[in-house]
């Protein structure tokens, strides 16, 4: 799949001027609220008409202001999962799902059974929307969109209205969707945890403009050095493999290119690949290997670069055997330890700082 977007529109005082191209399986439109993420998604869907620009999927033009092409929403063959998807209240889950299928293309229709299995809706088929949890409703909305046999699935913060536990539930199904259906997804989110868990391509939006776009890990690494993400958001993403489950201590040992990383109770089998996000503010630096310390993860590496200082703090990139970690430390410490690029250091990561929201399936 290739998606090309280059659009402009004025919405009151807000000017949207977004341009990017992506071929990712899951492309995250990431940014703060009000950055124009949902507007971009709606333009792709055809629910919002840009003033200028062009939108194309796999070379097929959906919108082109110059030539006047504007494929109507119902002919774009896209699935849309809304923030708070509404179901038809007087129909059962099965009927709600089949409403999606009715409008799909003939012949290429995804089968109901597959979607029901994929989304774990088998027990819910005969129930009515008012008897479903928020997470189940959202799964039905996803299933409804899938059964319309879309060539691209658009998701607008599908977790926004859910509590933390339900968020995890839906993320799990989105991951399955990504890995099992092959339908590309454009996913709007303002949560870096979600983006890191599911996306392979990131488009960073701010005030209606694309600040950065590219493969997730590279874009994140570039992003980390920007003040954009706010004081406590920055971090690095590691691809790791589950090496050991220490049930007695409730710890999991993860192996990545730079060594081992202990994290509490990762819900995965040994050998499974996971993604771990290590926040910059959870990483400390030491110039000598510390002894008698509670921190479990002590990773030797060298300083790759120092970021711009923001207030009292500086983000430091550390190369740990090829994997880049980020540490947010004070300017005072940088000076006191005479930190500079090329200098060997130990990166210290508290295991408990890696919570369950920081880990996802790769």
């Amino acid at each position, binding site marked *: 799949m290739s998606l090309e977007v280059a659009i402009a529109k004025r919405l009151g005082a807000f000017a949207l001027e977004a341009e990017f191209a992506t071929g990712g399986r899951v492309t995250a439109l990431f940014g703060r609220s009000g950055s124009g993420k949902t507007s971009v998604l709606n333009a792709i869907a055809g629910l919002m008409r840009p003033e200028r620009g062009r939108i194309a999927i796999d070379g097929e033009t959906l919108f082109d202001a110059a030539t006047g092409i504007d494929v*109507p929403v*119902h002919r774009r063959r896209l699935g849309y999962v809304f923030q708070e998807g*509404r179901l038809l*209240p*007087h129909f059962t889950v099965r009927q709600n799902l089949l409403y999606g299928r009715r*409008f799909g293309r003939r012949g290429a229709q995804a089968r109901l059974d597959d979607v029901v299995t994929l989304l774990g809706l088998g027990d819910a088929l005969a129930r009515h929307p008012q008897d479903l949890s928020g997470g189940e409703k959202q799964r039905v909305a996803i299933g409804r969109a899938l059964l*319309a046999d879309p060539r691209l699935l658009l998701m607008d913060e599908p977790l926004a209205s859910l509590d933390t536990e339900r968020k995890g539930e839906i993320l799990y199904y989105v991951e399955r969707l990504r890995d099992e259906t092959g339908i590309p997804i454009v996913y709007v989110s303002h949560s870096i945890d979600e983006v890191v868990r599911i996306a392979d391509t990131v488009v960073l939006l701010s005030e209606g403009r694309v600040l950065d776009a590219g493969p997730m890990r590279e874009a994140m690494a570039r992003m980390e050095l920007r003040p954009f993400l706010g004081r406590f958001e920055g971090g690095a993403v590691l691809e790791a493999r589950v090496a050991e489950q220490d049930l007695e201590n409730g710890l999991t040992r993860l192996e990545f290119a730079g060594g081992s990383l202990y994290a509490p109770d990762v819900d995965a089998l040994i050998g499974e690949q996971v993604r771990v996000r290590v926040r910059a503010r959870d990483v400390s630096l030491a110039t000598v290997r510390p002894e008698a310390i509670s921190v479990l993860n002590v990773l030797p590496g060298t300083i790759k670069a120092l970021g711009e200082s923001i207030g009292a703090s500086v983000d430091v990139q550390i190369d740990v055997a090829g994997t880049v970690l980020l540490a947010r430390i004070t300017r005072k410490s940088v000076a006191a330890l005479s930190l500079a690029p090329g200098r060997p250091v130990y990166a210290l990561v508290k295991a408990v700082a890696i919570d369950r929201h920081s880990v996802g399936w790769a």
Partner: protein
Amino acid sequence: MPRHALAYLLSGAVLLALAALALAVGRFPVSVAELATLLGAKLSGSVHALEPNVESVVFQVRGPRVLAALLVGAALAAAGSAYQGLFRNPLVSPDILGVSSGAALGAAAALLFALGPLATQALAFAGGILAVGLVVWIGARLRGHDPLLALVLTGVIIGTLLGAALSLLKIAADPAGTLPAITFWLLGSLAAIAPRDLAVAAPLVLAGLVPMLLLRWRMNLLALPDDEARALGVDTRTLRTVVIVAATLMTAAAVALAGVIGWVGLLVPHAARLLVGPDFGRLLPLAMMLGAAFLLAVDTLARTLVSVELPPGVLTALVGTPFFLWLFAVSRRSW
């Protein structure tokens, strides 16, 4: 037996019984046995031994009237169901959206110039579509108001305006000839309907019904917010336009035939929804049966209750107002 099948069966039985009753009662009573003999003879083509009066009462006087009541009731109820589903709004109906007033204005103009039934139908449709178009257009532009309220109030306002235009038309009418004709027709009456009028109106009602039946399934998706329905693949703009035109055609045909008979289009869809739920495919046939039965019952009462014939619109309002208030109190907002 599923609930909706039971509702269809019972409504069908009531409808048949009411039709037989309506053909039988009146100043010249016909017994059920006579009715059966007459119908049997008519169907088999054989000769019967009844007085010729009986045959003329049943086939010339009461027959067309019964058919008109069934047609008008079914048309108004179908149009009301469609409007309510379309606007996701339990308060709309052909009367409230100004369609009836618009159609009445058109039809009254046709009466004023003594045009034929076909022109009357055409003008009624033009007036109806103009009215609903205006209401929808203005209602959508009243931003900052509850859209439901905006639509209903705009309907009432446009209806009043069209009522004023109608008064103007009556001033211009000949007090000895066309004025009483217009006035009585406006009150709503099924008394003077000729088979010729029926032959014009029935195909128009049918023409409005066909797209509704074909689109019944998509109509349900209009219960979702507009963006979601569109994202699910429904061309909501075309759907709305087609259904509005179809429902207005049915309303206009009913109004041109029988004048303004209020409440049927508001009341009956609610009753049908309470019985079978809001699925439009199930709702539409039941609403039509109930609408036909309701208007037939009302018209039969109107001509037999007292020695003078009452306008059916008076009776529908009398029955309709309290029933609607009760419905409104007990029914939840789902359709």
